[in-house]
Every structure is written in structure tokens, then in C-alpha cells.
């Protein structure tokens, strides 16, 4: 947790107290959730609210640093549950922010075995988070303008055939992870030395790309034909557009791709721990998982395989349900950089954006 000088703490506390004078205390019949945009879909949240007769207050955030900043600036008990990058669960848990979860009350047995991710979601064998959704950072493309076979090989992006028709997803971890895979480096082996070898291919890719965009802008660019390829994209980018334009597709190239996974946790100082646990159980249930997988913000594979019985054939087809077994053998996890490597990665990313 960031340590601020005590004088700063005092002034911050005073400012917060002034603001808090007008704020209503958290109601016992409500749940405060710090989530990603897919968890805000009313079709996902409403059934839980109706079943438990409560209101779920949602605050959307992006990036673990932003989530931690929100927690730092909140009062203990302000938040009950939090969605978080699976690779960052330990980072948050080490600050004492996450409560243990009763694994025997969660349907972990129904999960895809690779997605239980005990090494990420548990500390000393005790679960503090549970995977809720996963997918891939790979290559999304428009089949109408790009040869799908060429997309099976990442090096085709550097051939010159697609210059000016590529968008790079604006998130350094998966993109650097994919470039590492293209260079034959495992994401787990990415260190400062290996990172330096990625500078040239990153700048090369940047020179060939038309733009570097976050989710909605990348989706828009692909949907309206501004670009044909999104490097770092995946099913989460194109699945929601599949109905309107079936040519928008994605693949996992022969070099592999990066697996993303998001987890959900109960905060240690939750004011409503029982309700928070019920929410986690609901999100992990087949019904909750199916709704989350097809959220209006972005689609992704449910961690709970039992959700497959609830999803329609079309939905499973868009998610490439039947190919998951093969995909999971060909992907690697997000790089998990320490503070120094993370800073170096972000410096490199900023250089790329400004040059």
C-alpha cells in the first residue's frame, strides 16, 4: 500500500471527511463492487439483485494500479468485492486486502482445470480469489480483407502486406508478451535483458500500425474498416460484433498467444462479507458465468465449464468452445513483471507511443 507522509494523511483525511459529511453510509442491503465493464451488464446483475432483494452498486475501473488507487482512497468497508487481473491477485492479497474464500462452497470442480489457477488465486493453499472469465490476447482480423491463413503466422504482420492496416491494442503486457512469443521467448522468462530485444520489433510493428487503441476504439476501427488487424485483440474484441459482421474473426497463430484471466475476490474489510460471498458464488455459478461470458461489454470464455450447458450453440460457436482444449495448450500466461521490469515495460511502451 502506498505510504504517504503522516501530514499528508491527515490533510487527505480531513478533505475526505469533509466530502463524507454529505455522503450516506453504506446500506446493509447493498453491495459495493469494484469491477470491470463486463460485470456491469444489467442482465448479469439484475438476477442477483432480485434473488437477494439487494442493490449492487458498481464502479468500473481499468488496470490494477487504478483499482488499488481507488481502494487506497476509500474508507475501510466501502467495497465488498473486486474483479482483478488473475496475475495481480497476489499483488493485492499481499497488501492484506483480500479475504479467504471457502473453496468447498465454490464450484471449482466444474471449472476448466487450467482455469482454477490455484497458483494465482490462492495463497498458501487458501483461495482468496476465483477465476471468473478468460480469453486470449492474440490476433483479431477482418476475414474479408485479410487472408486468414496468413494470420496463422505472426511474422506475416511484419511482411509489409498489412502496413497501415494494423491497430495495436493499447496494453503493454499482452502485446509485449506476444512479441516475446514471436521472438521465441516464453512470457515467464521475460526479463529486463529480454525486454530490450523486443524494442526493435515493437518499434517496427508501431511503424507498420495505423493506431494504438484501447478496446472501444480498436473495435470501432475494425468494425468500420479503418484497420484489418488488431494485434493483441481476441474473442473479447470481435465476438460482440460477430452478429453484425461475421467476417470479423480471430485466431491463435502458430507462435502462440497470451492467456488473460480475470478473477473475483471478496475484500477483507467488506461490510457485507456474507452477501459478498453470495455474489462471488453467483458469478461462479453456471448461470452467472453464462451471462458474464456474453456480457454486452465484451465476451470471453467462462471459467466454469458447466456454463456451456446454458450458452446457446451460436454463442458457443462464437466463443470457439470446442477448440478451447487445443487453444489452452498453445497459449502462455500474461507476463508477471516485478516492479522494475514493469517500469521498464511501461517506459518502452511510452517511447513507442511517442515515437
Amino acid at each position: 500500500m502506498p505510504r504517504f507522509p503522516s501530514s499528508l494523511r491527515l490533510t487527505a483525511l480531513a478533505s475526505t471527511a469533509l466530502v463524507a459529511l454529505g455522503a450516506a453510509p453504506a446500506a446493509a442491503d447493498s453491495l459495493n463492487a469494484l469491477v470491470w465493464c463486463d460485470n456491469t451488464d444489467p442482465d448479469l446483475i439484475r438476477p442477483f439483485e432480485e434473488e437477494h432483494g439487494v442493490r449492487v452498486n458498481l464502479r468500473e475501473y481499468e488496470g490494477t494500479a487504478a483499482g488499488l488507487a481507488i481502494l487506497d482512497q476509500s474508507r475501510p468497508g466501502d467495497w465488498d468485492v473486486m474483479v482483478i487481473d488473475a496475475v495481480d491477485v497476489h499483488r493485492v492479497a499481499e497488501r492484506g486486502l483480500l479475504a479467504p474464500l471457502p473453496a468447498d462452497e465454490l464450484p471449482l470442480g466444474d471449472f476448466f482445470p487450467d482455469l482454477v489457477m490455484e497458483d494465482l488465486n490462492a495463497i498458501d493453499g487458501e483461495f482468496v480469489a476465483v477465476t471468473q472469465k478468460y480469453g486470449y490476447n492474440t490476433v483479431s482480423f477482418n476475414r474479408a480483407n485479410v487472408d486468414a491463413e496468413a494470420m496463422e503466422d505472426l511474422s506475416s504482420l511484419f511482411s509489409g502486406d498489412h502496413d497501415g492496416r494494423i491497430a495495436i491494442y493499447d496494453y503493454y503486457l499482452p502485446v509485449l508478451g506476444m512479441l516475446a512469443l514471436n521472438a521465441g521467448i516464453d512470457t515467464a522468462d521475460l526479463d529486463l535483458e529480454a525486454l530490450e530485444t523486443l524494442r526493435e520489433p515493437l518499434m517496427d510493428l508501431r511503424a507498420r500500425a495505423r493506431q494504438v487503441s484501447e478496446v472501444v476504439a480498436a473495435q470501432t476501427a475494425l468494425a468500420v474498416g479503418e484497420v484489418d488487424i488488431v494485434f493483441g485483440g481476441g474473442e473479447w474484441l470481435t465476438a460482440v460484433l460477430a452478429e453484425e459482421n461475421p467476417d470479423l474473426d480471430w485466431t491463435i497463430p502458430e507462435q502462440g498467444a497470451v492467456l488473460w484471466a480475470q478473477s473475483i475476490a471478496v475484500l477483507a474489510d467488506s461490510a457485507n462479507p456474507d452477501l459478498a460471498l453470495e455474489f462471488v458464488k453467483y458469478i461462479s455459478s453456471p448461470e452467472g458465468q453464462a451471462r458474464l461470458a456474453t456480457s454486452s461489454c465484451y465476451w470471453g470464455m467462462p471459467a466454469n465449464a458447466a456454463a456451456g450447458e446454458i450458452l446457446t450453440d451460436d454463442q458457443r460457436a462464437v466463443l470457439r468452445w470446442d477448440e478451447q482444449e487445443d487453444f489452452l495448450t498453445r497459449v502462455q500466461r500474461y507476463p508477471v513483471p516485478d516492479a522494475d521490469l514493469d517500469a521498464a515495460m511501461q517506459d518502452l511502451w511510452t517511447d513507442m507511443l511517442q515515437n
Partner: protein
Amino acid sequence: MDRAREARMGWALVAPALLWLTAFFVLPFAIMVGLSLSRFVGREVVPALSLDNYIRFFTEPSLFRGLVVSLEITAMVTVVSVVLAYPLAWIIAFQVPRNWQRLVLVLTILPFWTSYVVRSYAWLLVLGQGGVVNGALMGLGVIDAPLSLSATRFATVTGFVHFFVMLLTLTIYANLVQLSPNYARAAADLGAGRFATFRHVILPLTLPGVMTGAFLTFVLCMGDYITPQILGGGNELTLPQLIMMQLGRRGDFPMASAMAIILMAVVTLAYLACARFLRLERV
């Protein structure tokens, strides 16, 4: 009422404003200054009294470039917006019948009523390769292939100008309608033509409105994050985008605070220049 009582009454009247400013400006500003002098080590904020963040900002090209990009974009937006807004305000003030002026003003500021984010995304579609602009140019035979207009600085400037022309039109219009027609008549009596009247009489008298609008444009444009984020295509980063990166991705509050103070300093300098130009010492 004796003097002491008068003074007490004065303080009592000023107290709410002082309290408000202290709580919501002075204290947060002091916290920000304190943070900007702290260090970010590993992933932790370490209290310190160091200028490292400021030094790093001015010596690291990718960070300093954010300020340069912001200033360049803001200058372009301000100039283009003034050039477009002045004639528009003039037409509304002097060419549109007085009864219709209110309606025309409402129509002018209609885009204000739509969401800023939605408006930016709308520009993304308008400027896209299959968008209205490229469609029209190709339809007219001006170009053979679509131009790359979106995800460029041009797109960012266009999105900004669309917004700020409305703002400037209002401030300039407010200035123009206050001008007595006698100024123009007196200039005409002295033999000045229409251009000379405008150049030597109307324009100087409306400069306060123009400068006020231009300063507002400068401030809002320098600090805006959304438009360059959506329309710029990540091809260059403005200072607010860099600040957001420090906060959202790194959690580096000290660096973000230092950058925010630099941004504030630039805006303050712009204000001082503006006030000096207009000799508005009391503003």
C-alpha cells in the same frame, strides 16, 4: 457599527468562501505538491523532498514531448476556433434579426447538449475511411482513395474545434452585442471604410471577449484527456494522457502530481500573459 464589529462581520461573510477554497483547493493542492516531491520506488510512494520527478519530466524526451504535443494542439485549436467563431458571432450579432438571434444561438450551442464522449466517437465515424467526409470527397471526384483522417492529430484538432467554436462564439457574441453602433458611425464620419472600422475600432473593442474565450479554450484544451484519447489513435500522447498513464497503469502518484503541477504552471503562465496583454491587472 464600530470598526471591530464591521471587521468581524466581514470575516463572517468571507468565511464560507475561505473554508470552501481551503478544503477544495488549498489542501488538495498542498497534497499534490507534497506528492510531487515524493519518490515512487518499486510500487510504493516513499515520502521525500525531491525534485526527481520534475527533472525526469524535463529530461526524458517521451515525457517532455507530451507537453510539446499539448501546446501544439492547443495552439492550433485556439487559433482555428477563434478564426471560425468570430465571423459566426459577427453574423449572429449583426446579420441575424434581433428576434431570431436567441434561436440561432441555441442552434449554435446544440452540440453542447450531447455527451462529450459520444460526440468524439461520432467524429471517429465521420472522419473514418468510409465516413461522410471521405464519402463526399470521393463522390465529388476530389480524391480517388479515402484519406487517413481519423486517428490523427487532424482528427483531435477537429474534435476540439467543434466544441470550442461554440464556446468562443458565445463569448465573442456577448462582446459584439454590447458595442454601441455609434462607434461604427463615428468611424464612418471620420472617413473610415468598413475594413478600417473593423480593424481599428470593432476588433480592439472585442478583444477582451476574444481573449477570454481563447483563454478558456486554452485551459480546457490543455487539460482534456478524452478527445485525444479517442480521436488521436494513440499516435502521440498529450500531457493529460501521460498523467492518466501514470495514475491508471503505474500508480505513480508522485510523477502524476508533478505533471499536473507543470500543467497548472503552464495554464497560469497563459493566464498572466493574457491578463498582461489586456492590461487586466484587476481581473
